[in-house]
């Protein structure tokens, strides 16, 4: 069997295109995924046009709030590209230079200030997007919604803080600055204390009325003490308490590495094994080989071994390339090898079944793409994004192919935060046996037709 494996590697070496692809493919994927991952955290470019006059302030109760520095807040989350006017913003969006444009109109602060008047306006910001690309459009919509929610929250908090200050002034007293003047406010607490102090000096018939005023001052202070935290809560009435009750997920970039590695392993292994087995027939060597030189089982085992060996090298090459972009835990290399070997065996067994069924190299290549691509994409559909019935169908369908368990095994091997590796490895072992049996049955008519 080892000589047959040696022969397959010789043939592989003699096929410059295949050999080059086996080297170039993982490097290319590693570079592309690496850039995608490292570029993923970059902020999207957004054109920013701020027409609001620099000295405008949001006014609460006749008092201007400190400058909110809207631009600084927004530009922390997106890469702001300053534009001079709306026309330039439109041009940049249309050309694709920026993902979107955010225009803060000149009357924005006036409209916000009008909210506390008898004639409230509707504050609006303008977002310019290019809807040519639905995915990009959806992304912009999500980003803008998130930004808007954050802006509303920040404004509400600022108003709440200012409101609390006024409440504090009413209860505890202090100085109110109004129209450049400082007005002393006595406050309910001090008022009650003063009234309590003067009570003994009053005639008895007035004392009961004064006591009512003192009680009112104390009740007012106590209730306003409660109102402060209440106003603060109003700024963000609902908080999210995220509790993970099932599963565990590794960082997104590790998952992306696992996807890239599994994709590469799947394509290299399935195409190589299926093609190599079909080549035995195209070269008319299969009957000669199986006429006493090697059994069908041994031939299948050799092909699976070829797929695992080449897949292992290519996947490790890919992971080494991705290490440039994403730090990987090389201390887990033992688990990587386990995952790659089991995944490679599962995928190679599936490749052998395809190769035995299709029997011609060209048909095999086409079939491998037709099967692998949709299975790979379906394996990436997360729960909850489609109806439960559809997801259940997808889950069962993808469980019949080795891609999903291979992805789970790779994810588990790459990061300790990933799922357990045991289940996927057992799943892959079962698939190796199942596809081995299918390939063995398909080989029965391999030589005859």
């Amino acid at each position, binding site marked *: 069997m080892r000589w047959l494996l040696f022969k397959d590697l010789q043939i592989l070496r003699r096929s410059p295109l295949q050999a080059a692809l086996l080297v170039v493919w993982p490097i290319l994927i590693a570079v592309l995924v690496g850039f995608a991952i490292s570029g993923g955290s970059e902020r999207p470019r957004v054109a920013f046009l701020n027409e609001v006059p620099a000295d405008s302030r949001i006014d609460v109760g006749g008092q201007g709030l400190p400058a909110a520095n809207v631009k600084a807040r927004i530009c922390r989350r997106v890469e702001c590209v300053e534009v001079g006017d709306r026309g330039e913003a439109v041009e940049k969006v249309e050309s694709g230079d920026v993902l979107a444009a955010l225009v803060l109109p000149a009357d924005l602060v006036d409209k916000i200030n009008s909210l506390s008047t008898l004639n409230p306006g509707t504050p609006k910001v303008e977002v310019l997007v290019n809807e040519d690309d639905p995915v990009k459009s959806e992304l912009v919509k999500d980003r803008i919604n998130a930004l808007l929610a954050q802006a509303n929250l920040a404004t509400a908090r600022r108003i709440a803080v200012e409101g609390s200050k006024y409440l504090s002034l009413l209860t505890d007293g202090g100085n109110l600055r109004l129209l450049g003047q400082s007005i002393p406010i006595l406050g309910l607490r001090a008022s009650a204390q003063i009234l309590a102090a003067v009570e003994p000096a009053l005639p008895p018939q007035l004392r009961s009325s004064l006591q009512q005023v003192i009680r009112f001052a104390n009740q007012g202070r106590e209730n306003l003490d409660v109102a402060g935290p209440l106003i603060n809560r109003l700024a963000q009435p609902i908080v999210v308490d995220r509790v993970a009750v099932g599963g565990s997920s590794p960082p997104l970039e590790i998952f992306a590495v696992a996807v890239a590695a599994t994709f590469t392993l799947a394509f290299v292994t399935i195409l190589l094994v299926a093609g190599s087995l079909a080549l035995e027939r195209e070269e*008319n*060597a299969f009957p000669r080989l199986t006429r006493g030189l090697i059994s069908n089982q041994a031939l299948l085992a050799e092909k699976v071994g070829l797929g695992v060996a080449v897949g292992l090298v290519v996947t490790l090459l890919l992971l080494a390339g991705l290490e440039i972009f994403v730090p990987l835990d090389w201390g887990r290399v033992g688990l990587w090898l386990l995952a790659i070997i089991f995944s490679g065996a599962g995928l190679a067994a599936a490749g052998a079944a395809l190769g035995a069924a299709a029997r011609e190299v060209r048909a095999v290549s086409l079939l491998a793409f037709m099967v692998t691509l949709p299975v790979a994409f379906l394996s990436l559909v997360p729960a909850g994004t489609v109806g439960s019935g559809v997801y259940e169908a997808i889950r069962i369908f993808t469980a019949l192919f080795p891609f999903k368990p291979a992805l789970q095994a790779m994810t588990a091997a790459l990061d300790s935060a990933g799922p357990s590796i045991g289940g996927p490895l057992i799943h892959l072992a079962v698939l190796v046996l199942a596809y081995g049996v299918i390939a063995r049955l398909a080989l029965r008519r391999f030589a005859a037709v």
Partner: protein
Amino acid sequence: MRATGIVKRYGDREALRSVSFGAEAGELVAVIGPNGAGKTTLLSILAGISKPDEGEVDAPDAGVGWVPQQAALYRRLTVAENLLLFARLEGHEDPQASVAEMLELTGLGERRDEIVARLSGGNQQRINIAVGLLSRPRVLLLDEPSVGLDPRQRARLWEFVSGLAERGTTVIFSTHDIQEAERYGRRLLVLADGEALFDGDAGALREAVRSEAPEAADRDFETAFVAYLHHRGH
């Protein structure tokens, strides 16, 4: 080698109908007949590639070498690499020596490092036969070995095969070229629609043709043979 009462069916169709046949050491036997006569089926059963539905095959212990119609070689490997691979798979103690021996036998020593795909059809067939000989068989089965070869390549091929028979190897080959069978076959087995119509030497076949299709007896042998088959209902 002996085959007795061989029957092979593909669904309802009988590809071989109780064919019995034998060959002695050093004999060169041609299995002839029109397309679909059952020649390849018979050879593949003798080679052990497919099993008969009925009947028995008695093959020598030293084994049977089989050379398929199309070269069963790895075209991206060199001549020597192909021979070395099969010598190793055959379990030869000194595979390199076996390669040298086969290169000597085929006369392709100078082309040992050439990729098989770049060889002519005739040379590919010689390597194909050499691989079949690596098991050092007492019987060599050749399925239409001269198909696609030009006359010069064909002549060299038959010179090579005749040499093998002279050295004691039993050679059984199939062909639909009646003149080739007459020229190189010491015995001819005529198959038509899975039935063995004739088993004897070329002279006896001419006699049989003359007696059963006298109207074509004076024509060339191929025409007379076709008339004979027609006369026998094929």
